């Protein structure tokens, strides 16, 4: 007797077989070969973790997306990972502690408690790299270059890497400012809504002008360079962004365009430096997200600079 209820698909969770399974494995092998060639070692963390481990550091932004269940073997709780980055940070802070510099790549399924944007998929095949122990421009160049190469390896058409820096906003608004509401406003790029907040918060003068220009889409490389005299901190960030863009663009050549966009906002507020995302023709949403998150590994017990990027291979093979 067939149990019909047992055969019902789980919302947002799907099987893959035939051409789709084959396409995912082909893409996975292609990226793994690229990352290995760049000197990155594979790590395979488990699909379940202790909830506390997943909820610290970068993981605290995904606690509402984490499925937690009872563990009959341990009388405690276990969590299904919604993100692999916190697991890699845990590894680096514990079992890989003796290494000063770590280049790691990973690829595996993650499950979200709720589909992003309603009734879509709750499963992603998260694939990415993390570079630990190399601060500043050298690490940023390496990872951004690898992100461009990854989109090239996947044969995406006319790829573009959008490049920003959380330090722009921080230097404009001051180190003590809660960036969350400003990031939420800039994410929608509505000058009218931003203007209301600027008036409410009594932000005016050149800072207000630059923030409004960011929302209007004017904050490209030349705009930022023209306004770099705002403050020493702002000038340093602009200089770092321009140097990074130039270095990676010359490495990638014309196969991938890199554009500086001062209004680019991070997906989560754990980034401490550059932020970037990748787009390609015919794909209506970002193909990858990345950036520097120097303060996040400390939450796992080891203070180490970190940068990386990740993507969802289900999206990549569907694009």
């Amino acid at each position, binding site marked *: 007797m067939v149990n019909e209820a047992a055969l019902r698909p789980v919302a947002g969770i799907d099987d893959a077989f035939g051409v789709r399974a084959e396409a995912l494995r082909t893409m996975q092998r292609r990226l793994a070969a690229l990352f290995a060639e760049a000197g990155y070692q594979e790590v395979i963390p488990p699909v379940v973790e202790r909830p506390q481990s997943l909820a610290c550091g970068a993981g605290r932004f995904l606690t509402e997306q984490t499925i937690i269940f009872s563990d009959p073997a341990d009388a405690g709780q276990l969590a299904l990972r919604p993100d692999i980055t916190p697991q890699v940070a845990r590894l680096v802070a514990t079992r890989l502690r003796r290494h000063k510099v770590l280049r790691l790549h990973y690829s595996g399924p993650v499950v979200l408690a709720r589909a992003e944007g309603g009734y879509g998929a709750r499963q992603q095949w998260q694939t990415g790299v993390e570079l630990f122990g190399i601060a500043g421009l050298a690490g940023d160049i390496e990872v951004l270059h690898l992100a461009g190469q990854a989109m090239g390896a996947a044969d995406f058409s006319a790829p573009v890497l959008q490049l920003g820096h959380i330090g722009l906003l921080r230097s404009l608004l001051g180190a003590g400012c809660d960036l969350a509401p400003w990031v939420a406003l800039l994410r929608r*790029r509505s000058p009218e809504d931003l203007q209301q907040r600027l008036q409410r918060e009594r932000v005016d003068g050149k800072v207000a002008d630059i923030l409004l220009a960011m929302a209007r*889409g004017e904050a490209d490389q030349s705009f930022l360079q023209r306004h770099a005299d705002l403050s020493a901190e702002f000038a340093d960030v602009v200089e770092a962004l321009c140097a990074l863009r130039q270095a990676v663009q010359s490495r990638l050549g014309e196969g991938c365009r890199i554009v500086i966009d001062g209004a680019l906002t991070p997906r989560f507020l754990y980034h401490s430096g550059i932020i970037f995302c990748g*787009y390609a023709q015919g794909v209506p949403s970002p193909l990858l997200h990345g950036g520097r998150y120097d303060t996040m590994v400390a939450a796992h017990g080891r203070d180490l600079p970190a940068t990386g990027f990740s993507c969802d291979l289900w999206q990549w093979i569907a694009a």
Partner: protein
Amino acid sequence: MAELGIASEQPLKIALAKGRLLEQIIPLLESVGMAPAAADIQSRKLILPGPNGCQFLIIRAADVCTFVERGAADIGIVGRDLLLEARPNVYEPLDLGIGRCRLCVAAPADRPDPMALPAGSALKVATKYDHLAASFFQQRGVQAEIIHLYGSMELAPLVAMADCIVDLVETGGTLRANGLAEFATLFDISSRLIVNPASYALRKERIQPLIEQLRSAVEEQT
């Protein structure tokens, strides 16, 4: 890998809401030389050709966000009410200042103010803005039962299906004609230009000048 610049050669797709709002949008688009031909607007075609190789998709207002968020259209024009309700992942670079109205709580004028109910009161609210209405009352500590309707909200309190409604009000004429009064305003609403972030990243050279032209046209009108 394909050559750069291919993205710029695709037609720019602009999603417009059919109906009353379209009548206000067309003059604005005409002022920047981007409107579809008048004969095409009168036709029943859903895809209309436009100048400079652009295409207009004529769709329901409620679907504009979806078409732009999913990249079926690069750009769209949609009411702020729908943006606030659906929270799509799109840019909102310009408020066009047309389709002005407000999202209000309204109830029968001869009944108690739904905003001044005793603590712990329950309220039945008819609306098509489920999230905005639920969030509005939740923030005020009122347990609201949301009744989703697709239209004729004003009828719900008149037949005792709901205590109040959350709906768009332009002049207030329909409310008054049905014995309802406004008790609170949630948001001021107008229409906004929206852009798919990927389209913006890939086709900024094409999209940004259009935004600036429209910005100038809007500033001239105000």
